[in-house]
């Protein structure tokens, strides 16, 4: 799983210019999953990686650059692969990128149409047997190759041995060792990076026929005096518990439950700090900005809207921190192993679980992660299910709504009710996703053969601080960029819609409004705004759910991004009571109709909103990616309409059920 929720809408920036291209060395990193490939990539290129996509397909492309002796070296991190005999789209990319016979004229991007100048093949020292099989295939391409042996510390700890000089002689290519991307180890590798054309090449290529290959691997290992490491006792002992049919399942659910508790309890003080800071900024605006329009724009649109979403950065960071730590430790593949049978009831496989778990961050990387699934049918089913998983964009919406529904501090002992409700929402999303996958998988029956399922169980390892930090920072950066672009833009448009047409004092007085009463005037402007028109226009659809036009504005605006719902309510509340928007939301009352002057956010309404957001596909970016990945508008259209219908029915039911219980 790649870190971050790359929206996949960017293309790889053109690298270098005509002047530097001649001097640029292009290298590609090849290796199996869990071989330390991405750690090495991060160590070589620092935090300067750019993400983009391979043309035609949406496999994320990671590229970073470094300088060695004044020569620019561009390193590309190819997707992890076990073989150059591909069975998935990811693996096809690797096989194609390494093909020396590719046409040089067809593709516009020279960097992609030519094979790399050199390959760095990462080989996990503890599974050298399998790694040599992949290396033998890579050497067939006859591109200059350098072997980077990783995890030699673990090899030594588990009493395995390897003679690197002998391995170098046996293979006929440069061999270096880099443990966990340590700088002291990188020097030897860096010295080689600038001139791949000078690297030694094997005199005789390794065989491809299977019996001969097995013999070749055996002879290389014997020549390198390779002693297979002892079984990792630590991993074995931990697995005896974590993969135990009963204990393992119990711990799995406890882990998932704790996951959501942490998001609430640990993030709370950080969020309070951010809120206090924005309140302080708001007081500065009140003190120093005298122009009412500018003041309203600054405090409502910028501080109310953007600040309202920025508050969720600690939670987003924690979510990604925990995902990347669980991934780095090796627990994710255990979770996929435990969940495989359950996934198979929905017609999916364990790896689809990883794609769905990525969807907890954002449906877009989740949908993109389905490319590791070899079967077209599984891919489609997982893609359709992904938007139902509770993404991090729903998190701010849920937190806001749960805050309105359940008082802070409520709970049984150490278990917070808010955390428990959140867990329930995540569970509801996951169950809906499984059901959708089951339906899609059965509709798509016959869309290709069943492909083999296999999943490596890597030893438990401590993830490096650098790789976790890179992942968390990357995700927060993307979230902040999203706030900067989509959310800021939408908030400004909303502010205009909420405050236009402008009303002068004469018009207000004509309407019977006391112009000296700030709350009354702002409410009058809001009630007659363009946004109110939109909200009231869609009112017939949402009225049975208990939503009034102000909520409707939020629901419509949340199509741009779900977090906008929070920003919108922040603005609407701020417009009603500029002094204290958060209590304004709680005290907001219904303006007209049979429930007039009753509180707007009653338990049935909040429950209906929560139910609506569990299911509705309120995200244009996801729709766009679904369109691109599935190749037509058919599936996104089906998903959007059916999830909307489901959301409406669920919200209606939630409203009535909670209403009956109150």
């Amino acid at each position: 799983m790649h870190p971050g929720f790359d929206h996949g809408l960017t293309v790889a920036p053109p690298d270098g210019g005509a002047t530097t291209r001649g001097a640029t060395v292009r290298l590609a990193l090849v290796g199996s999953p869990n071989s330390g490939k991405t750690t090495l990539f991060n160590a070589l290129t620092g935090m300067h990686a750019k993400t983009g996509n391979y043309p035609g397909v949406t496999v994320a492309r990671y590229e970073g650059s470094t300088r060695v002796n004044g020569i620019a070296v561009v390193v590309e991190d190819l997707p992890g692969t076990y073989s150059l005999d591909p069975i998935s789209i990811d693996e096809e990319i690797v096989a194609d990128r390494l093909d020396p016979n590719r046409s040089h004229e067809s593709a516009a991007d020279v960097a992609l149409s030519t094979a790399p100048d050199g390959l760095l093949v990462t080989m996990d020292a503890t599974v050298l047997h399998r790694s040599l099989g992949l290396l033998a295939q890579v050497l067939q391409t006859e591109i200059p190759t350098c072997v980077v042996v990783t995890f030699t510390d673990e090899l030594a700890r588990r009493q395995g041995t390897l003679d690197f000089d002998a391995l170098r002689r046996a293979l006929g290519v440069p061999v270096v060792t880099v443990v966990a991307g340590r700088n002291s180890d990188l020097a030897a590798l860096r010295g080689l990076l600038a001139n791949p054309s000078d690297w030694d090449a094997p005199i005789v290529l390794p065989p491809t026929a299977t019996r001969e290959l097995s013999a070749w691997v055996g002879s290389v290992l014997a020549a390198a005096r390779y002693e297979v490491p002892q079984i990792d006792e630590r991993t074995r002992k931990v697995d005896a518990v974590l993969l135990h049919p009963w204990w393992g399942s119990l711990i799995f659910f406890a882990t998932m439950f704790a996951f959501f508790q942490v998001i609430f309890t640990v993030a709370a003080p950080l969020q309070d700090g951010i809120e206090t800071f924005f309140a302080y900024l708001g007081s500065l605006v009140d003190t120093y900005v005298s122009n009412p329009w500018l003041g309203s724009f600054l405090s409502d649109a910028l501080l109310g809207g953007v600040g309202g979403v920025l508050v969720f950065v600690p939670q987003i960071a924690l979510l990604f921190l925990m995902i990347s730590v669980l991934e780095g430790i090796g627990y994710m593949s255990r979770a996929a192993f435990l969940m495989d049978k359950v996934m198979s009831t929905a017609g999916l496989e364990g790896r689809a679980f990883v794609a769905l778990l990525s969807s907890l961050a954002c449906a877009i990387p989740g949908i993109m992660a389905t490319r590791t699934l070899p079967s077209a049918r599984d891919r489609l089913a997982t893609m359709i299910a992904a938007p139902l998983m509770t993404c991090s964009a729903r998190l701010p919406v849920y937190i806001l709504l749960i805050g309105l529904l359940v008082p802070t501090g409520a709970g049984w002992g150490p278990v917070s009710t808010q955390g428990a409700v959140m867990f329930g929402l995540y569970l509801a999303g996951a169950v809906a996703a499984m059901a959708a996958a089951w339906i899609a998988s059965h509709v798509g029956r016959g869309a290709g053969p069943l492909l083999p399922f296999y999943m490596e169980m890597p030893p438990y390892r401590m993830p490096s601080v650098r790789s976790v930090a890179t992942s968390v920072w990357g995700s927060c950066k993307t979230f902040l960029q999203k706030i900067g672009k989509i959310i800021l833009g939408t908030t400004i448009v909303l502010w205009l819609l909420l405050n236009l047409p402008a009303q002068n004092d004469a018009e207000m007085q004509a309407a019977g409004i006391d112009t000296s009463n700030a709350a009354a005037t702002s409410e009058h402007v809001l009630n007659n705004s363009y946004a109110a028109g939109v909200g009231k226009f869609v009112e017939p659809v949402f009225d049975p759910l208990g939503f009034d036009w102000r909520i409707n504005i939020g629901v419509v605006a949340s199509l741009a991004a779900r977090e906008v719902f929070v920003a919108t309510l922040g603005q609407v509340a701020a417009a009603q009571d500029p002094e204290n928007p958060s209590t304004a939301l709680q005290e907001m009352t219904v303006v007209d109709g049979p429930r007039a002057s009753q509180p707007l956010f009653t338990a049935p309404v909040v429950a209906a909103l929560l139910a609506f957001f569990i299911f509705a596909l309120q995200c244009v970016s996801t729709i766009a990616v679904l369109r691109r990945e599935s190749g037509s508008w058919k599936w996104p259209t089906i998903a959007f309409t059916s999830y909307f219908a489901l959301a409406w029915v669920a919200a209606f039911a939630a409203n009535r059920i909670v209403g009956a219980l109150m």
Partner: protein
Amino acid sequence: MSAVSVTLSSRTIDSHDAPGCTGWTSLADLGPGNSGVIVDLCDSADPATARRLFDLGFAPGTSIEVLRRAPMADPVVYRVAGYEIALRRAQARCIQVSITV
């Protein structure tokens, strides 16, 4: 398709000549704690799966150990070629082994 992958996709998996071996059984029929030597892959029935299993280290002649089952008995973790990997029953059926323990 790249040139190398065309070559690789035309591979056939040679079976392992097990001298004095009498009983072959499917890996799917082994329980946790059992060990064996891989004798053959289902190269004729499902060549793509057989080639992938070979690339993952399930080469004829390699020893294999059954480690543990997931809840509801599927998939199963095996130890092969010095590492641990889970396969579903359907893939385990593709692998023929001669039991050593």
